C-alpha cells in the first residue's frame, strides 16, 4: 500500500530489508516480505507462541510486535538455528531424538523459546524449562518429549562447558 515504510534489520546474521505497512506485524513481514516461512502463526493474539522469534536476545511474539518496531534489531528465526547445508543444531537434534515434534507447526516457536532460555539460563532445571515453555502451545506431543529434549541439551551444554 501507499503508506508502506522501509524497514532494515539483521535477520539470522544477515542485513535484510523490505517494505511494510505500519500495521504489519513482524511475523507477516518475515513470512511475506522476507519469505522466511519457518515462523508460523497459530493464534495471532499472543498466546500460542508458534511465532516466537528472538529479537535482540529475547524471545518475542512476532504476532504482537509490529515490523516497524523491529527496525534496526537483530532477529533470529528458526532458519538461523542451523546452516542449510550443515547438521542440525543441538536443540533440533534433541527434538528429533526425543520425538518432540509431530506436525511441526509449533516447533519453530518451541525451538526459539528454548534457544533463548538456554542462552539466558544455562542452569535451568525442569520446573524452569516448563515455565519457559508455558507460553508455547502444542496439540500433538503432550510436551513431555519437548521438556526432555530441552533438559538433554541443557545438560550436554553444561557438561561440555565444564570440561
Amino acid at each position: 500500500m501507499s503508506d508502506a515504510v522501509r524497514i532494515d534489520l539483521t535477520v539470522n546474521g544477515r542485513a535484510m530489508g523490505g517494505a511494510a505497512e505500519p500495521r504489519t506485524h513482524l511475523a507477516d513481514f518475515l513470512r511475506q516480505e522476507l519469505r522466511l516461512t519457518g515462523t508460523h502463526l497459530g493464534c495471532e493474539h499472543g498466546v500460542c507462541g508458534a511465532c516466537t522469534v528472538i529479537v535482540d536476545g529475547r524471545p518475542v511474539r512476532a504476532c504482537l510486535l509490529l515490523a516497524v518496531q523491529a527496525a534496526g534489531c537483530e532477529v533470529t528465526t528458526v532458519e538461523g538455528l542451523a546452516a542449510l547445508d550443515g547438521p542440525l543444531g543441538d536443540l533440533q537434534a534433541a527434538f528429533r531424538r526425543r520425538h518432540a515434534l509431530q506436525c511441526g507447526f509449533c516447533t519453530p516457536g518451541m525451538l526459539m523459546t528454548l534457544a533463548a532460555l538456554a542462552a539466558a539460563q544455562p542452569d535451568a532445571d525442569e520446573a524452569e524449562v516448563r515455565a519457559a515453555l508455558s507460553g508455547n502451545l502444542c496439540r500433538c506431543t503432550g510436551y513431555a518429549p519437548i521438556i526432555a529434549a530441552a533438559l538433554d541439551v541443557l545438560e550436554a551444554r553444561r557438561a561440555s562447558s565444564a570440561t
Partner: protein
Amino acid sequence: MTNPTTGIGAAVERIEDDRLLRGGGRYLDDLELPGLVHAAFVRSEHAHARVLGVDATAARQLSGVAAVFTTDDFPQASRGKRMPQTAPIPALTAAVSTMHALATDEVCFVGEPVAIVVAASRAIAEDAAALVAVSYEVLPAVTDPRRALAADAPRVRAAAPDNRAGRFAAKFGDIEAAFAGAARVIDLEVESHRGGGHSMEGRGAIAAVEAYSGKVTLWTSTQLPHTVRRHLAAHLGLEEPQVRVVAPDVGGGFGPKGIFYAEELALVLAARALGRPVKWVEDRREHFLASVQQRDQAWTLQVAVDPDGAVRGVRARGTNDCGAYLLYGLLLPLTTVVQFPGPYRWGALELELDCVFTNLTPTSPVRGAGRPYANFVIERAMDAVARTLGLDRAAVRARNMIPDDAYPYETGMRTPAGVPIKYDSGSSRACLDRLLEDAGWAGFGERQRAARESGRYIGLGLACYVEDGGIPPFEGATVRVLPSGTVLVRSGAASQGQGHATIFAQIVCEVLGVPLAQVMTEAADTDAIPRGVGTLGSRIAVTAGSSVAKAAEAVRDKAIAFAAAHVGVAAEGLEIVEGAVVVRGAPARRMKLAEIAAFLNGSAGVPIRPGFEPGLEATAFFPVPAPTYSNGSVAVEVEVDAATGAVRVAECWFVHDCGRMLNPLLVEGQLVGGIVHGLGNALLERMVFDREGQPLSTNYGEYLLPGATDVPRFHLRHIETASTRNPLGVKGVGESGTIPTPAAVISAVEDALSVHGAVFDRHPLSPEDVLAATGCLQDPGKAVRPDERRREASTALHPETAR
C-alpha cells in the same frame, strides 16, 4: 527380521523431522502461486436469523478488492444446492442437514459464511469484509441440547418440523430379567463436554482453476483429500480426474480437518469466477466459530448389579448436541454408541441416543470422536457401582472385565449395517493387572492417609478402554522402485504429523532391505493414487501400512523373479538383502533393485523381458474387513489444592495394547499427546455459548489448552497382542490416550476429596466445581484449611503473595 535397527518395530527417528526442524515445512499458508489473491469471509453475527439482504457496495469500492461474492453472485447450479451429506445412514432422519457454500436466506450459527471477499492481501480482504453490510431479522435460537426436543423449543431452521437430526437405539441380552433379579439398581446422570480440535495450524485452502481445461486444483489443509475430491467433483458436476486435491504439510488435524467444508467450495467457486487462484487461511477466531467441535452429550443411566459388583444390565438414554448442521453425518454419535460396553461383559444393555440440532457451531469427530463420551459414561458407572456397594474401584472393573482368553469376543452390539461387533484380540485384564502394580494401587490408601495428615489431598483414579481403530474399508499404496534405486511410496494416507512417511519406510525397509533414507513418500495428492479415503479413526497403520507391506512384497517377488530369469538361477535360490537380489550363500552374486528397475523401465528399441510387465512397482489396496480393537488402562494421581480448587495432575500410568508396534517412539508420541488432549477435556477446555448462541470463548485466553506446566510425569507400558485382521498384526493408537483420560482424572479428584463425599457427574471440572464439592465455595469461612507447612512452602515460592 530383515533389518532390526530400521525395520518394523524399531524406534527410529523420523525421516520427516529434518526439514520441519529447519523451518522448511510447506504448510498451506507457505504456498505461493502466480496471481494469487486472498480471501476473507463475512460470517453470521447471529445464531439464527433470516438474511434480508447483503450490501457489498462499499466493500467493492475499496482499493485492492478484486471481488465480493454473495450466494447470488455464484452460478445458479451452485446457489440452490446445499453441501452434500457425506455420510448418509438410515439413523439420520433430518430432511435438511447441510449448509450452502454461502448462506442463502437463513443463517443457523454464529460464524456461518455469508459472503466471501477477495483482495490483493488478506489484510485488505478483512478491511473490506468489515464494510459488507448484512441485514438480518433475528430469529429465536435453540441452544440447549437437553431441551431441543421439547415441543416449544425454537427450531434450528425456520422450516424444520423439529430439531431431531436422528436417533440410535441398541440392545442386547434380556434387559427385563437383568433388572428384575438385581440386588441394587443405581441411577446416575452423566454429562461430557468436549471442545474443539485446536490444531496449531488452522484450516486453509488455495483454489485454482486452469483456464482452458477447467481442471480444479484445491490445496487444502485436510485429512481427507480423496473424500474432498469426490464430493467437490460431484457438486461441480465434474469427473473426478478433473479435480485434484492436495494436502501439503498439515499442522495437525485431530478430526476437524476431516470434513468437506463450505469454505472450500466457496473458494473454488470464487476462483472459477475470477480466473485467479484464491487463498484463504483461517484465523483463530474463525476456528472457534466455524471449524467443527464436539461439545455436549448428556446421559441418564440405570445400572442393575449383583452384590459382588457384576453388572447385570444397563439402561442408558442420551442426547447428543449436533450443532447447526451435520458436516460428517452422525459419525460422532454413532462412534459413541458402538463403544458400549467397552472392555466389560454386561448381561444386557438397552440404549437410546437422541441426536439433536442446536443453533451452535456444528459438531463432528475430534480426537477420540464419540469414544471418550461413551468411556466417561461406562467408567462413571463402574465408579458408581464401587461407591454404592462399598467395593474397590479396580475390583469392580476386574469383576466385569472380558477375560483375556475370551477373544475373539462378540460384544453383543452391531454396526449400522447389522454386523455383530467382534473384538479381534485383546488383553484388557493383563493391562489392568499390570497397571495396578505399576501405579501402586494397593498401597495408595496408605500414602493418601499420610498425605491427609499433612493437609494434602491426593487421589488416584483409573479407567479402562477399548479403541476401535483401523477403520475400513481400505487405504491403498503404490510401491515403486525408481531407476536410481530410491523406493517411492504413494498413498492417500494424508499425514497431519503422525509420521506416516517413517512407518511406511520402515515397512519397505523390512521387505526390501533398503535404507530408510532411500524411501520417499508422496501421500495426500489425489493425482498420485486413484482411490483413497483419508486419515481418521486411527486407521493408517492398519490400512495403508498393510497395503504398503503387500505392495512391497509384490515388488520383492517380481524383483526376485526377474533376477532369476536374468541370471538363470531358480527363484528359490534368491533372496533380498540390502536392496539387492542375491544368490543365497553367494552374496557376491547380486543384482541391485536399481538395475532391475532400470531394465523394467524400458528403453527405446529394447523389448522388455518376456513375461514381465513394465515397471518395478506394485499397487495394493488391502481390504480391511472390520476394525481392530486396542485396549488398555490408565491411572492418574492428582493433588487437589483445597484452598483454590486447583487440580494438579502429578503422575500418569498407562498400560496398553495396540497390537504389534511399528515404531515404539511414535506409539509413545501418539499416547502422550492423546493423554494430554484428554487432560484438557477433563480440566480445562470449555467451549462456552450464551443463551442466544453467541460464543463466549473465542481465543486462548478464554479457552484454555493444556500447557507444559499442566502435564504429569508419564509411565507407559506396552503389551503387544497381534491383531488377527491384518498381515502386520497392528492396531490403532492415535486416540487411545484421549479416550479414558477424562474418566480417570475425574475419578482421581473424587478419590482425593472422598472425605467430603465428592461426586462429580461431568467434565471439565473447574476450580469452582471442586470448591463447591468441598463446601468451600458456599461458605469460604469454613474452608478446608491447607496446613501451615504447605502455606509456608507456597509463600516461599511466591513471596509477593505473603500476607
